[in-house]
């Protein structure tokens, strides 16, 4: 899981983001070495999703800098599409394309954005689908799949672009409890294969297992950052302790 970081793969420096008057992110600073997994924890509205969306340029930052794989996201003249091909993101609501089959969902971007031929894209897609045991669903439409299956297809759809960084935004929060495990297993596999990931999640046990660093966000600010053992066993900040106590009480740990 953790490895000798090959330098900073993702560097977020003093990023501030406002929606009108409201400061959703304030002076957020974060470093993610390559192959590392960072989990963002915190209450809803604490800025986890916004931070992820800033990293793949779905949102523009108001102040600060973000650098991914040596490329600045916040400077002028950013090739947004090229950057997004390197960064995969999976959302809480899966967002599969309902008018396309599973196979078409997975091959669309490799064919149109990467220029792969149809045969090549389909071959790769089938491989990925086989890995998650959903190859026989290749010609089904998303509405025939369970939530867990759809989310795993969404992950595979992002992986088909061979990204160097994966951003996962609370990908199990909308799932029935019994479907959560299959998705988390897939993420564990990804982590052990060395994928650099930033994961926003409510699944504390999972976060503890899989991450190299935990970031606790509270009100748009990183209150505490550190290795999972430290954060979960000996949190330094009072807000962190409050949060973890609530989570424990809710039985999610």
């Amino acid at each position, binding site marked *: 899981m953790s490895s000798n970081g090959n330098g900073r793969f993702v560097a977020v420096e003093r990023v501030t983001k406002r929606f009108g008057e409201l400061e959703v992110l304030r002076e957020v600073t974060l470093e993610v070495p390559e192959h590392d997994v960072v989990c963002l924890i915190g209450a809803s509205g604490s800025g986890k999703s916004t931070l992820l969306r800033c990293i793949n340029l779905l949102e523009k930052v108001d102040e600060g800098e973000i650098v991914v794989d040596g490329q600045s996201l916040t400077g002028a003249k950013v090739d947004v599409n090229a950057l997004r091909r390197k960064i995969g993101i999976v959302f809480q609501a899966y967002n*599969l394309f309902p008018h396309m089959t599973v196979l078409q969902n997975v091959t*669309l971007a490799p064919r149109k954005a990467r220029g792969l031929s149809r045969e090549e894209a389909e071959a790769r897609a089938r491989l990925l689908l086989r890995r998650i045991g959903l190859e026989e669903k290749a010609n089904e439409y*998303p509405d025939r799949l369970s939530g867990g299956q759809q989310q795993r297809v969404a992950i595979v759809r992002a992986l088909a672009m061979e990204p160097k960084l994966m951003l996962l935004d609370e990908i199990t929060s909308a799932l029935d409890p019994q479907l959560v495990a299959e998705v988390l297993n897939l993420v564990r596999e990804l982590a052990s294969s060395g994928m650099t990931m930033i994961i926003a999640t409510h699944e504390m046990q999972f976060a503890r297992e899989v991450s190299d660093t935990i970031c606790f966000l509270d009100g748009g600010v990183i209150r505490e950052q550190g290795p999972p053992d430290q954060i979960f066993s000996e949190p330094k900040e009072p807000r962190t302790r409050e949060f973890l106590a609530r989570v424990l009480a809710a039985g999610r740990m």
Partner: protein
Amino acid sequence: MHRVLHAFVDPFYFRQSLPDIWSGFVLNVHMMVIAEALVLVLALLIAVVRGLPGRGARPLRGLAIVYTDFFRGTPLTIVAFVCILGLPGTGIGFLKNVSSTALGIVALTIVYTAYVTEVYRAGIESVHGSQRMAARSLGLSYGQALRYVVLPQAIRRVIPPLLNDFIGLQKDTAIIGAIGVTEAAAQGTNFANDYFNYTGYFVAAVFFVYLTIPLARFTDHIIRQRELRERAAGT
């Protein structure tokens, strides 16, 4: 009452007027088919222009807005007169050889493109933003996301109002009859002026209805198909 019925639905005049009304109706079909095809394509173009992001596209968006506002607000009759009697009078050489029927198609296309643009736009806006967001996140460009993800969904959603507008277009081809194109309704008028009987109009109406029924059933079929297939899970 009996007399009213005979003035509008007389079997003898029905047969008498049939050949002329039919020859007129062929013109209606000609106009509607060509206009519909043009409208489908042009309106999609303008709807896409209307949605282009960024400062640079502002004049284009403005033009699209002016166009749709103006031609949705102007009666087809006026546009038709301008096209059929006005345009050839401008002295632009080749227009002299363009038939009134073709100019009628131009008028129908101009007006109905404005309506259908708004239909497409509503469809595009009804596709949840998360779809475009997901497509862009995969590295697809604005145009690719539009073409492969947003538009296919948008168009499927607006098939009923689209077909509704086309039924309107089909009937409105009759308006061109006042300006030198002797389509079915004008033939009905001609018949009425010669025979003092209005059954010709009834025959024309039958032809029109006969054409719109398959279209209405086709719409129902498409809606049913879509409902069966695309109950998308998750937003």
